[in-house]
């Protein structure tokens, strides 16, 4: 029984790290660009499908893990150059409409390319089987997922806190104008940040592929969860996305043992509870 809970807690950590990667991308983009990306879930979905497609073509999961997020990031970079850049100055309503449009285009393109029925993705050979810890056995891939995303999270933290690029992103979140006046090409910074944030959603997609497969209509659900995490943790906050993501992942995973049908429902229940107690989220300021 105790092992079952340990199992679910680890599952929850893995799930939570996926949610963290999705939400932190959303949050970074919003923080710097003041832009809401409703296509974030759709880019995650494209990540899942790229995992499937790259595995089909190359047979190498590691290649998919590197190339998938890069391709998603490049797509986002292109979209930013061509389209998103033109609408920064408009109110949020228009950001939402345009990115809803982008999400529809991505979703339907996925159906055209890969069909309306989802694809399951095999677990890479090297990560099949279980890891034994005494009597406790845990799937290798899920353990890899937790460790790998933790490393990515740490690298991202280093990038944001310890590099010139990160300093610019953080400064830009405070005052875009000032950063621009001090001689930084703010548009280049915007493109890169948008690509980075969306690329993180793509990475989350690739990583979750072998666990839950790829379905063309998974975007809205993922977007909903990312919003829950951000509402709980506070928009623009790295630690908020981490804590919110892990909290939601754990709630969902633990509820699966108690009330499987209601696991997804409880995510939103948890959000309502947090909002009721702390209207501005766990780390939010009024």
């Amino acid at each position, binding site marked *: 029984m105790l092992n079952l809970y340990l199992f679910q807690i680890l599952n929850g950590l893995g799930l939570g790290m996926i949610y963290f990667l999705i939400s932190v991308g959303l949050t970074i983009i*919003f923080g710097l660009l003041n832009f809401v990306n409703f296509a974030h879930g759709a880019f995650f979905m494209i990540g899942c499908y790229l995992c499937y497609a790259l595995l089909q073509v190359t047979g190498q999961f590691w290649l998919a893990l590197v190339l998938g997020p890069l391709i998603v990031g490049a797509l986002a970079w292109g979209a930013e150059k061509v389209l998103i850049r033109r609408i920064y100055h408009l109110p949020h309503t228009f950001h939402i409409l345009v990115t*809803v*449009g982008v999400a529809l285009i991505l979703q339907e393109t996925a159906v055209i390319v890969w069909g309306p029925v989802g694809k399951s993705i095999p677990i890479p050979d090297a990560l099949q089987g279980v890891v034994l810890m005494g009597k406790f056995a845990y799937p290798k891939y899920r353990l890899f997922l937790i460790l790998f995303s933790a490393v990515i999270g740490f690298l991202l933290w280093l990038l944001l806190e310890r590099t010139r690029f990160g300093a610019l992103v953080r400064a830009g979140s405070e005052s875009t104008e000032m950063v621009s006046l001090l001689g930084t090409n703010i548009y280049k910074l915007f493109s890169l940040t948008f690509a980075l944030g969306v690329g993180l959603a793509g990475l989350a997609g690739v990583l979750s592929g072998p666990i839950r497969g790829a379905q063309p209509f998974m975007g809205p659900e993922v977007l909903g969860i990312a919003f*829950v995490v951000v509402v709980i943790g506070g928009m623009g906050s790295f630690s908020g996305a981490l804590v919110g993501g892990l909290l939601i992942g754990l709630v969902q995973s633990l509820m699966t043992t108690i009330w499987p049908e209601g696991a*997804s429902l409880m995510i*939103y229940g948890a959000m309502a509870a947090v909002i009721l107690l702390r*209207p501005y989220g766990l780390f939010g300021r009024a």
Partner: protein
Amino acid sequence: MKRLMTSKGLFGGTTLAVLAILVLLPLVLPSATLATEIVIFAMAALACNLLLGYGGLLSFGQGLFFGAGSYLSALAMIHGGVGLVTALVIAIVAGAVIATFVGMLSIRRTGIYFVMLTLAFSQTGYFLAYTLSKWTGGDNGLLDVPRPAFALFGFDLVDLKGAHAYYVFVALIFLGVYVGARRVIDSPFGSTLVAIRENESRASAVGFDTRHFKMLAFTLSGAVTALAGALYGMLINYVPLDNIAMAMSENIVIMTVIGGTGSLLGSLLGAGTLVLMGEILSSIWPRWPLVLGVLLILIVVFLRGGLWGGVESLIGRMTRKDEA
């Protein structure tokens, strides 16, 4: 009579245009069912427009009210054996109550947080409907939703089984909602909403309890949307899970904005455009939402006032030419 014709009168402004459209729709379109669908979604878009166009509140959770209206009215008819009027009243009250609850938790936050909260709460409704499959039918939807006759005090007055009879019934309700919405907008309450949209802190500084006003608008919008949902369930005799899904909220917002915010007539235009587009394109190409995605982007880039805004500026340009 003259007073009635002025812009604030009962038939003034765009109300006559709406009346004309309502009469023409079933004559022009191939089926009365299609016309009914347009009018029902126009009602939902109108409720969304009331929030977005006048209160500046973008609710991405209107599907929650729409779905709740269809589920609860259908369940009341199936299990409670209630009649048409009672079922519709149940939907309206339920919509108002749920909107009040969601509003209490969401309206404290402004801007993008408000959008995200409404979206998240509508997802709650989706998963609730999905989880309670014993009642809602889950993924399969709720089947055999009746469409009772219009009855008062136990007497069946009008049978609504026929597509045309039901259209007239829905169109009359829409007309009532439209006139009511115009009254609300022209009232001091409506002006206050616009003031809040333009500058919330100033409206608050002048002494208005802005949260209270926004809550009222949200509740009203939820009630009307739920009414539309109930009418939709009776139209197709079925409540699919899609009624409460995020795509429903998305569609309602899209109709509102495509039509043009800030003009109630635009909602009818937007709903008509989207429903007809779906009807025509989906038979040609099942992947038509791709076209919709492109259209959305084009509208934001080129036609920000929506279709009604485009029509207005066209009329403006033509009349200006006449003067010159």
